[in-house]
């Protein structure tokens, strides 16, 4: 029986953490004709839900969109509304926000690196099966993850859907002593992250080279510590590997979302129709020069050089970013001085506000329209997974084309791995694929 000519592969039950999806592949005469990655439940209902609500509510409402990256939603929303209202967040509060964001990067990256992605490379169905043979690795993951969660709890009030964030700042700023208590464990985490990167560098990465347009934030010069410039987390201009360099408010002129007949999820594209990728590889490819010396040296040691064009190596980028997030958290804690006030007042202004931050999976863009009394009249939320969908489909097509010699089970398994390269929320559900194959 030929595996390489006419095939139809349907994965009927993909579900991301927040929803469900599927994957369909059609091969005709040995050529991949179509790859469709569906998501049934994008968080678009939140956009309608936000209409008519107060401008103060988006951080708490949108945080519920995702349990793994609520901070990203909170801060993209806050930046959009604060920029519209002409509020400059004091540096102390901004640094505290960045610290909270580091906690999210830590717990999210740890989950994906160790518990979702590493099993692919080590030959296990999942972390549970991997645990007995790689006990130290899994225990390291749990300890790292707990440290990230603790940071979220101390600064954000709780690890999942933090409650301490508000428009204008925080409800309460942590004390110096509360943050100092985290230092010893985070110092251990920094070493553990470096060791993890070294281990991951030894993985065997399947061959796949892609050349999409990478898009990431890039902080403006001088915005970082001591006049240096930060690696992007909570702010920056939007830049691309094709020369785009725009302020966040110009997003709608260059990017848009479109309906796809095969999916209820919107797909992000550039206005010229081009597909693009956001996420760790994009960040690294566009900001490798912004890594501080310790993380830059680690990247060099593990052989990570921009541009990273093999998506399977994204796990290595995440490991270096994990090291960076821990290192950055330690730097922010060392420099911390409790702000005079935890938040500044924000008076509503009628108009349109835009905000974007770097969620662990890539740029998260928010746009709000406010009336003069602060009522939200329109909201747009563009999560990274929506933006990456077209590029993931294109990559899958290339990957399937090169692996048509595999039988269906093996091909499905490899496709799931390829999807997990992007750490989409649907990566969870790719473990539950029920693959059916039709051959003609």
């Amino acid at each position, binding site marked *: 029986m030929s595996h390489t000519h006419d095939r139809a592969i349907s994965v009927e039950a993909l579900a991301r953490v927040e929803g469900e999806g599927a994957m369909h592949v059609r091969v005709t005469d040995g050529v991949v004709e179509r790859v469709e990655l569906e998501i049934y439940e994008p968080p678009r209902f939140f956009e309608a839900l936000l209409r008519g609500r107060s401008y103060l509510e988006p951080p708490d409402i949108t945080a519920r969109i995702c349990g793994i990256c609520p901070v990203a939603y909170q801060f993209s929303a806050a930046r959009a509304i604060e920029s519209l209202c002409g509020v400059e967040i004091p540096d102390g509060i901004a640094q505290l926000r960045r610290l909270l964001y580091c906690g999210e990067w830590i717990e999210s990256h740890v*989950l994906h690196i160790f518990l979702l992605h590493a099993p692919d490379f080590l030959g296990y169905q999942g972390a549970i099966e991997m645990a007995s043979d790689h*006990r130290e690795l*899994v225990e390291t993951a749990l300890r790292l993850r*707990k440290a990230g*969660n603790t940071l979220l709890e101390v600064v954000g009030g709780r690890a999942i859907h933090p409650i301490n964030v508000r428009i204008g700042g925080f409800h309460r700023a942590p004390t110096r002593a509360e943050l100092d208590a985290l230092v010893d464990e985070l110092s251990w985490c920094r070493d553990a992250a470096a060791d993890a990167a070294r281990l991951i560098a030894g993985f065997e990465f399947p061959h796949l080279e892609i050349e999409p347009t990478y898009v990431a934030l890039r902080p403006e010069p001088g915005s970082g510590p001591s006049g240096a410039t930060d690696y992007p987390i909570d702010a920056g201009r939007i830049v691309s590997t094709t020369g785009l360099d725009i302020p966040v408010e110009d997003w709608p002129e260059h990017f848009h979302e479109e309906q796809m007949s095969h999916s209820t999820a919107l797909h992000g594209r550039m206005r010229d129709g081009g597909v693009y990728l956001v996420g760790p590889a994009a960040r690294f490819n566009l900001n490798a020069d912004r890594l501080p010396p310790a993380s830059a040296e680690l990247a060099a040691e593990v052989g990570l050089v921009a541009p990273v064009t093999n998506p399977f190596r994204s796990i290595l980028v995440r490991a270096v970013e994990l090291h960076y997030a821990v290192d950055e958290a330690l730097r922010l804690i060392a420099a911390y001085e409790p702000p005079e006030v935890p938040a500044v007042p924000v008076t509503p202004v009628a108009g349109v506000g835009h905000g974007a931050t770097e969620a662990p999976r890539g740029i998260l863009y928010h746009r709000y329209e406010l009336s003069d009394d602060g009522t939200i009249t329109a909201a747009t939320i563009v999560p990274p997974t929506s933006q990456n969908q077209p590029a993931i489909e294109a990559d899958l097509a290339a990957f399937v084309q090169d692996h048509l010699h595999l039988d269906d089970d093996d091909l499905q398994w490899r496709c799931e791995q390829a999807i997990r390269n992007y750490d989409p929320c649907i990566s*969870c559900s790719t473990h539950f694929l029920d693959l059916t194959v039709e051959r003609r």
Partner: protein
Amino acid sequence: MSTLVLGIGHPDRGDDAAGLLVAEQLSGTPGLCVRTVTGDPTGMLLDPDWGRAEHVLLVDSVRTGAATGTVSRWEGPELLAALPHRSAVTHELGVATTLQLAQGLGRLPPRLTLIGIEGACFERGEPVSAAVRTAVEMVASEIAGDIGDQRP
């Protein structure tokens, strides 16, 4: 014999608070180490008391189809066998995944028990139902009584 009681749940989702309420009632009971788990449960594997305890007793709300307030009990092997098999963890690490990871890591305590209190309403902001409150009282009393019986 050291016993660690872990009350698991959400404080603001109706009957999901059952485990937390049991832990609250048992707090300070001589001979018991009591904790609450409201977020990522994998962290409990790193609690030193998890490693030291001879008996870990998890109390959580469950949905088995029984009448609201019904108390069920599962012990070690039976409990592990009843867990849904998931070959990979998702973004949400639940109690089942945590126990399966503990098994893989060789971190299961000598004795493991899950006490499940059948819940009915898990909606945000809803109160704990009367039947579950009664069950909470009963479970807390039984656990305290068992510990009392073991004390010299």
